[in-house]
């Protein structure tokens, strides 16, 4: 925040972090002079507040808010939210979350199942209708694909996080 804050010239200790967001991977280098480079970009000054506020850039920083949850970093930047997975070098990557599996966000009952194994679906197609809080909630295809598994049937009570449908 201090405009005359130097970027430091001494030989910096560095740490490499792999970032994954929106299917893209980025390599970031975090230096102990308070700078971070992402990909081939130039180092930018980063100050991390004790209360979750992060200022990125110098002298006119952008204000972000971050919180860590396991290997996930939640980042709030100007009203947009990014969920970024981090992995430091030397550490094994955990099995990726089951991409393409759809689950209920809350305890719900299954009203109808429109998906069948092997069917091609388009993004936005309704695959399952749940009912929770007395409202019908459609579960829609997040992308074009093919249904590879159906784990529920009408009348089931389903718990959050348990896959209902898998799509490839």
């Amino acid at each position: 925040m201090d405009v005359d804050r130097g970027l430091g010239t001494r030989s910096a200790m560095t740490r490499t972090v792999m970032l994954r967001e929106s299917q893209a991977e980025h390599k970031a280098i975090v230096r102990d002079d308070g700078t971070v480079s992402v990909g081939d970009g130039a180092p930018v000054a980063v100050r991390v507040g004790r209360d979750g506020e992060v200022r990125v850039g110098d002298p006119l920083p952008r204000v972000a808010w971050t919180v860590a949850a396991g290997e996930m970093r939640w980042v709030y930047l100007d009203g947009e939210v990014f969920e970024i997975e981090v992995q430091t070098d030397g550490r094994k990557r955990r099995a990726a979350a089951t991409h393409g599996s759809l689950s209920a966000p809350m305890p719900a009952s299954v009203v109808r199942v429109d998906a069948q194994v092997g069917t091609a679906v388009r993004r936005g197609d309704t695959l399952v209708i749940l009912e929770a809080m007395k409202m019908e909630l459609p579960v829609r295809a997040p992308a074009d694909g093919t249904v590879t598994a159906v784990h529920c049937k009408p009348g089931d009570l389903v718990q959050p996080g348990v896959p209902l449908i898998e799509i490839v």
Partner: protein
Amino acid sequence: MTLRRVLIANRGEIAIRIARACRESTIESVAVYSDADAEAPHVRAADLAVRVGPAAPSESYLSIPSIVEAARATGADAVHPGYGFLSENASFARACEAAGLVFIGPPADVIERMGSKIAARALMQGAGVPIVPGETSVDQSDAGIIRAAQAVGYPALVKASAGGGGKGMRVVPDPGSARELIQAARREAEAAFGDGTLYVERVIEGPRHVEIQVFGDAHGGVVHLFERECSIQRRHQKVIEESPSAALTAGVRQAMGDAAVAAARAAGYRNAGTIEFLLEGAGDTARFYFLEMNTRLQVEHPVTEAVTGVDLVRAQLLVAAGAPLPWTQDSISQRGHAIECRIYAEDPQNGFLPQAGPLLLYREPQGPGIRIDSGVVEGYRMPVIYDPLIAKLTAAAESRDAAIARAQAALRGFPVLGIRTNIPFLLRVLAHPAFQAGAVDTGFIDANLDQLLRRSPAPLEALAAAAATRAALPTVPSASPSAADPWTSIADWGRGAP
């Protein structure tokens, strides 16, 4: 009569709102809580608190015997139902009266009458209030409803007589899909209201949802407090509300206010209520149709409080105690502009599915013209079984443009992390050219959904911030497991220093 102690039969932000109004009126307040809410913020907002049952709403917040017994046990002399839950339940209002409790709302028979959309339509028609052209069928079979739809003409709107909030409602585009959609509407209506009675309305093309706040007292006084424009809605759930409506000319505003007062008078209304209208067309030739009456305080009441400067909840307490309205129609003015954004725990990218989980980071914005109504704190875990409303942000300013700019600045400074919310979505609505021009109707979100859901990959700054954030940072003090119980024990006093 004076109210001495009010039981608040609700939870979350509205329970806190009501507790504050009680405190300012030097009335004691009693919170109720289910097992899922024992440590929820609304419990601490009241002077005392009482458990009303297990987590399931039907066994706690919706249990008339539990709530009435809680009022009796705590010596309350009145009950405020808030919105949702039992607020529009005539049996509950009756049970309160029978237990000698003042029900802070309209008389039970008024709730009942307006709760039947079919009866309400008939009443309004008699009072000269315009209603949406439609058909009510005595034959409630699929065939009977299909005939009513045919009489109205396709596309037709099938609605639940006991409905509200879009539940049990379907647009039937053509005869081919009629049976399936009618069955879905009936199924939903039966589940939600225990009453599958349906009726059919003409579909108004490109309507706006504009509602008028009304208020009646026990002495024949009825006033309106101008309009709220609620066209930004998704599946009939309001998302952004504002006042004034950019669509109303002075003449139409006056006519709607008069119609709303006539409607409230016809209903024998008392306390705070809302007449919802559909608005068709624009300018002085715009037409409005009675949609339904909400016989309770509205979620979006802060919008009206901001532009009129009145305190609706305080007035509810006064009027429930038998006092006359604290205003005359002439003393109520509409000044400036206010916009409310409802912040939900939901994932717009995934069908707006409600989200549950911890608010790992939650910082409310502040500033002139900003009002936050919330029922959460940092570290609070959004429960899976209740409404996913996190907070309401109301921005008031001199003009619509200034109110939009204020809401945008406030939302950009309202970091909520740990679960997904609709804040980015709200910001995209506020920035949309059609919204900024005030040129919206109730189809706005659906018509612009792709654009409103468009996300960019994380910019450099977000990636750098993520890379620099360590898991071990003490940035989440209240997200520790112990935060679930905000109380410590004084028992282990002896182990620590004094």
